[in-house]
C-alpha cells in the first residue's frame, strides 16, 4: 500500500471518517439501548408513583405533582405481600448458597480429579434442560412429599438449586480449570490438606465464578413461578411470582399502579446486584464451550 491507494475503511471511507461514522453509530446505539432497555424500568417506576386512576386511563410520562402519590406503595405493607417478598428473599439466598456450595465442590471435582465419564457428565446434565417442566408438577409434588420437603422453603430451595445446577457446575468447572494448579500445590507443600487448600486457595479465587453462578441462581429463584406454585402450595410460605398472581386472582380491586409499585420493589435488588457485581460477573461468565 502506498499513499495513493484508495482509503481502506468500510465502504471506501477513510479510516478517520470510518471512526467518525462508528462513533455516531455508537451514540445512536447507546440511545436506543437507553430507550428500549431502560425505558420499561423507567416506565414502571413512574407509573408506580402516579395515582392509580390516572394510570388506568391516560398516558402520562412523569408523575407531576398533581398526580404524584406514594399511596401505591401501601400495597407493600399488606402482610401477604410482605410475606411473599420475604419468602422470595429467603429462597433466593438459600438457593444461591446451595448452588454455590454444591457447584463449587462438583466443579472442583470435575476440574481436578480424575474419574470415569466426567467429560460427559456436565453435558448429560444439560440434557435435563431439554425437558419442559410443564407436566412434571405432579411427580415433583409426589417426590417432594415423599422426602418430606413439601411446603417448606427449604424444599423449594432444593428444587431451584437443582435446576440451576447443570449450568452452575459447568461454569464452575470451566472456571476452576483456569486457576493454576500450582497455587494449590503450593498450599499442599505448605502442609495444607486437600480440603484446606481448596478452601484457602481455590475458593477465594473463584469469586467471579461464584458471583456468576450466584447471579444465575438468583435470576432463577427470583423469577421462579412454576416450582413455587407446586412445592409451596400454602399461601403463607409462597413466593412473589405465584403470590402476585394469587393476589391478582383474589383481589377484586388491584389497579395496575399497585402492581407497578410491587414490581418496582422487586426490581431494585436485581438492579443493585447487577450494578455492584457486574465486573466479577463478566469475569465469571468467561466460559467458552460446553
Amino acid at each position, binding site marked *: 500500500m502506498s499513499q495513493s491507494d484508495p482509503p481502506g475503511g468500510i465502504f471506501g471511507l477513510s479510516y478517520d471518517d470510518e471512526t467518525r461514522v462508528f462513533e455516531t453509530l455508537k451514540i445512536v446505539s447507546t440511545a436506543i439501548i437507553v430507550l428500549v432497555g431502560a425505558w420499561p424500568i423507567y416506565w414502571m417506576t413512574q407509573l408506580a408513583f402516579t395515582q392509580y386512576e390516572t394510570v388506568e386511563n391516560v398516558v402520562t410520562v412523569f408523575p407531576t405533582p398533581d398526580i404524584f402519590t406514594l399511596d401505591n406503595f401501601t400495597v407493600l405493607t399488606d402482610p401477604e405481600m410482605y410475606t411473599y417478598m420475604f419468602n422470595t428473599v429467603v429462597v433466593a439466598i438459600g438457593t444461591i448458597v446451595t448452588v454455590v456450595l454444591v457447584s463449587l465442590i462438583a466443579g472442583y471435582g470435575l476440574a481436578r480429579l480424575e474419574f470415569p465419564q466426567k467429560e460427559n457428565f456436565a453435558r448429560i446434565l444439560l440434557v435435563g434442560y431439554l425437558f419442559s417442566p410443564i407436566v412434571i408438577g405432579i411427580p415433583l409434588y409426589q417426590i417432594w412429599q415423599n422426602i418430606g420437603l413439601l411446603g417448606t422453603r427449604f424444599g423449594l430451595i432444593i428444587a431451584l438449586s437443582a435446576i440451576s445446577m447443570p449450568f452452575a457446575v459447568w461454569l464452575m468447572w470451566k472456571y476452576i480449570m483456569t486457576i*493454576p494448579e500450582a497455587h494449590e500445590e503450593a*498450599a*499442599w*507443600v*505448605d502442609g495444607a490438606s486437600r480440603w484446606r487448600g481448596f478452601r484457602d*486457595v481455590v475458593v477465594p479465587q473463584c469469586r467471579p465464578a461464584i458471583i456468576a453462578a450466584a447471579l444465575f441462581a438468583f435470576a432463577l429463584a427470583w423469577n421462579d413461578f412454576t416450582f413455587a406454585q407446586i412445592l409451596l402450595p400454602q399461601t403463607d410460605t409462597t413466593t412473589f411470582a405465584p403470590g402476585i398472581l394469587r393476589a391478582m386472582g383474589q383481589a377484586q380491586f388491584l389497579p395496575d399502579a399497585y402492581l407497578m409499585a410491587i414490581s418496582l420493589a422487586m426490581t431494585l435488588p436485581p438492579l443493585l446486584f447487577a450494578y455492584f457485581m457486574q465486573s466479577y460477573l463478566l469475569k465469571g461468565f468467561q466460559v467458552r464451550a460446553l
Partner: protein
Amino acid sequence: MPDIEIRNLTKVYEESGNKIVAVDDVDLTIKDGEFVTLVGPSGCGKTTTLRCVAGLNKPTSGTITFGDRDVTDKPVQERNIALLFQDIALYPHMSVQENMAYGLKIAGFSREERIARVEEAAELLQITDQLEKMPADLSGGQQQRVALGRSLVRDPEIFLFDEPMSDLDAKLKAELRPVIEKVTDEIGCPTLYVTHDQEEAMTMSDRVAVINGGELAQVAPPKEVYDEPNSQFVSQFIGQPSTQFFDGNVGSVNGTAELDVGGYAYDLSRDGLEGWAGEDVRVGLRPQYIRVSEDTEAGIPATHLLDEPLGDATHSFFDTEFGEIVVVTDPDFDGNGKEYSLVFDDEYIQLFDTDSGVRIV
C-alpha cells in the same frame, strides 16, 4: 537435615493409550547442604523428577528417601519440603504478608510468631516494605522473592526449585541468583534446583545433573561438566555460546594422534585414541578456542556473516562447510562479511563418537 536419595526413579505417563517415559531409571543423591541443579532441554523430565521428589507425582517405580525415611508413598503434606514454581504460585487474593505466613498458619503458629518469622525472612530478602502489597502489584522479581520467603519461613527439610526464574529477564536473574544461594546456604538443607538455563546451573550449583530424554547424562561439579563433558549432548548444552561441532577423522595414532578436520591437521597429544585410527569422529570446540585468521589458507575457510558486539567481546557468525559457526572474537572485531579462516586451539579439542555422542577423550 537429611540427604535426598533418588533410586531407580522411573515415571511413565499414560496418555490416551500412549506411554510416555518421562523419567527413566534416575539415580541421584543430594547430600545435606548440597545444591544440585537438574538441567536439560525442555521436556526432558526435569519437572517430573522434581515433582516425584516433592510428592506431587507418584513414581511408577523406584524409591525416594529423605535420610532414612522412605517417603515414596507419603503425600506432599508430610514431606516438609519447600518448593518454588516456574509459574510463581503466589496466592493472588492474599497480601505478601499473608502469602508468606500461610504455611505457618497451617502449621498452627501463633499470630505473633508468624509475624516475627515473616519479618525476619522479609529482611533477608529485602522485601520488608512490600509486605502489605498484593502480589499483583509486585514485579516478577519481587514476586519470586516473596515465594522464596514463603518457603523460607517454614524451615523446610528439603528445598526444591522448578525454574523459579524462567520468567524473569536477564538483569533480574543475575540479581536473584545470589539471593537464592544466600537463602539455601542459610537454611543449609539439600537443594534440588531444576532449570533449563545452563548459566543458572553453572553459576549456582555444587553439582550439576544434566538430564536428557529422561536419563541422567552427567552428574558432576559445574567446572567438570564444562571442561570435561562426557557426551556431545552435555558439551553442547553447557556453555554459552555453545560448543561448535565439526566432522573430523582420526589419522595415524602413535603417542600423538593426528586429527583431520576439513583438510587441516591437528596433533592431539593425549591417550585413549588408540583404537580410533582411521575412524570418523565428531570434533567439538568451544567458540572462544577458535581463532579467526585473515589468512584464508590458515584453516577452515569461513565467510563472515554477522557480528554481535557485546562490549567486552563479540560473537561472530561464519558460514563454513560445517554449517554456521560462532566464534568469540575480541570487542573490536568487525568481520564486514569478508572471507576468513578458522583455526583451532588444539589443546581444547573434544572428540565424540559420531554415532553415540559419547566422549572419546
